[in-house]
């Protein structure tokens, strides 16, 4: 089994607010991330696919196809967007880095016609990232 990882970057804004909590609790839990006008990040996404090397091509998958799926499923949807307001999945779910990573898994897993999605790693900043393995 070989693991192939491709990186992609996107920029988006978000804010953290739970309707289940009071305004005071939202401010206490989320701090400056609760600012309703939002704030932004340059996200770095790492998508890792696991598979066997095709003896004919020497490759695990067609990188062009992976790049195309990443663009159509993730970047077109999230790049230069206000995640809370413009991405349907986050209408009722807070776009924390944790939830975005899980959402990206859900978007990509059914679209890969090659290998098996192994890991989504999403950097919100170089010092903060989330890993999700699908369960």
């Amino acid at each position, binding site marked *: 089994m070989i693991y192939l990882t491709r990186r992609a970057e996107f920029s988006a804004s978000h804010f*953290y607010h*739970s309707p289940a909590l009071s305004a005071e609790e939202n401010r206490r839990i989320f701090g400056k991330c609760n600012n309703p006008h939002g704030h932004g990040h340059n996200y770095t996404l790492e998508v890792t696919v696991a598979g066997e090397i095709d003896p004919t091509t020497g490759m695990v998958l067609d990188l062009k196809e992976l790049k195309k799926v990443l663009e159509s499923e993730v970047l077109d949807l999230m790049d230069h967007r206000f995640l809370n307001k413009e991405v349907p999945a986050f209408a009722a779910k*807070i776009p924390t*880095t*944790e939830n975005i990573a*899980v959402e990206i898994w859900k978007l990509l897993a059914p679209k890969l016609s090659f290998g098996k999605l192994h890991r989504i790693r999403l950097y919100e900043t170089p010092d*903060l*990232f*989330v*890993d999700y393995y699908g369960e």
Partner: protein
Amino acid sequence: MVYLTRRYRFAAAHRLHSDALTAEENRRVYGKCNNPYGHGHNYVVEVTMAGEIDPATGMVYDLAALDGIVQEEVLERFDHTHLNLDVENFRGHVPTTENLCVEIFNLLEKKLGGDGARRSARLARVRLEETSSNSFQYEGERTTESRK
């Protein structure tokens, strides 16, 4: 299960020297790290929490709480110190980055994942970079090491 990782930095001095070895053996085993005056590193520590996403907050662990605990247990204890001379943790054992990694894991594990709503998350891994090409990781009982 989602794994959340946060990076922190601190700078410290150390000297690798074991009382169980002779002066000659210390020089042979530790090389220039045995220099009696010590030397320093900019350490990078990565702390990984594992848990389920809290449906109310969308988060695995409260980052402000994590920052506070790492600040108190690790950064204030070790930053700008001489690990052999200034901190209690290495009285009697050598402050290699392996030992420092395990020490940080044990210090954090006592404080993390113990209270209230954050109970569901646990400390999964501490990864410590001594230099950009030297790192160690410890996962509690299941320990792995990487050195390149």
